[in-house]
């Protein structure tokens, strides 16, 4: 069974965005860092004009 990398990353992004809602000053920046890393991977894998 092949893994749909894009689907996994989209799910991870959604989860990371939930984490970013934290009010914890020590963790907030780290969660946003994680979210941005996943977002960057989604973007660099984008090969078509379709969203």
């Amino acid at each position, binding site marked *: 069974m092949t893994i749909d990398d894009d689907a996994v990353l989209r799910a991870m992004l959604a989860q990371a965005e939930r984490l970013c809602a934290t009010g914890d000053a*020590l*963790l907030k*920046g780290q969660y946003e860092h994680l979210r941005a890393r996943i977002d960057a991977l989604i973007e660099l894998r984008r090969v078509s004009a379709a969203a």
Partner: protein
Amino acid sequence: MTKDADPFADSALLARFAGLTRPELEALQLAKLRRQMTRLQASSPYYAERMAKAGLTADAITSLELFAERFPTSSKADFLADQQAHPPFGARLGIAREQVALVNMTGGTSGQGQEIYGRSQRDVHQLGYLHALPWVMAGLRAGDVAVNCVPAGGMTTGGWGPGEGLRIIGATAFHVGGGLSTDAKIDLMLTLGGVNFIYASTNYLHTLTEALLGRGITPRDAFPDMHGLFIAAEGYPLEWAAKIEEHWGCRLQEGYGSTQCNGFAGSTGSAGVFGKDGARGLISLFEWETLFEVVDPDTLQPTLSGEVGELVATNLSVEGSPVIRFRTGDAARYVAWQDAGTGKVWKTIEAGSIGRFDDMMKIRGNNVWPTAIDAAVFAHDEVGDYAGRVYTEAGKTEIEVRLAFADHCAGLSADERDRVIGSVREAIKARTNVWMAVVECARADLPEFAYKARRWKDERQQGYRL
């Protein structure tokens, strides 16, 4: 962001660490230690051999006390020999070679050689976290403007950790260290529309403050939004700390860290460098990340609360090149958590007085640490900087302290200069029991240090050459 942010109110995670009981903290340490040793037993021939020699397995480490009694310490010399036998990282690496994501080396200031550390991707995040942690505790928050005066990049942990830490906090970081002169740094800072936080070595914060005052700029007026000055790497006198806080109008805070700890291992937090009744404050150790023992360097027996001992460090989370019972050579006054009055169960060490056992100079029968002389000299606001030299002349040990007056004291009369020099001489004698010759020199004759200062030269060996 205010000057009095409460890190424990702003971070539920930090509040949980602060709320641990001592048995809970030690149970966490033991669990992490056993996980670390299980991993290293399989992945690090260096540590596996030490475990075997001690007749230990990871499973047999049933208490922190047993670990401290049985597991052998390592020293810098051990690591250097390991690296030589198994270049470049040594057999202690503990991760696959291709998993090394960042290479750090120690500074080489000891003259013995540089330790090489190979860090994993996870370690790099941890490196950032172990800089972010004390700075969040110091009040730094997302969006704050932070000026990092420590030279960035290169081979040192101090070159990479601040960048990673400021990035994951979400602060707006200006990495001005190394690349800009002090005047250029000041010019830039004045254009930023507000600065909230400065990270610098003790020595460099002094240089920066002196340069500002020399230009007729009062830091607290020029940077009214400053809420944190965070220093590391060197000791200082309390008189100096008080003047720094007065000049800048905010709290001075300090961290203790090292390459071996993969960043900071403790900090004063928002309490700052002053304790009760104006005495020295305390650095609370992040014991859930680094297991610390404080020991007598000769007997390796635990140091009593209130006494100076050597810090022995064990990484509980680091994957690549972890240190396990590493003798740091750092000399610190240990204050047990029961005596610290911090409201937490974290062990503490005294702020502002951390030195090196190997920096000690034996002078005329006295043990003299450069930090003691720093404390005597920099208790005088009039002094810009100094350099010291121990040498032999006609078979006698001589000590010369050359000091330069601060730029803002350029107008002092000859009599006033003589008075300051005499006072410095007396202060050095009071702190070291050694009379030293103190002479004035031009500021340009003294070296400038962007990070750790090396103010002393011991030239006595040369004097004995025939």
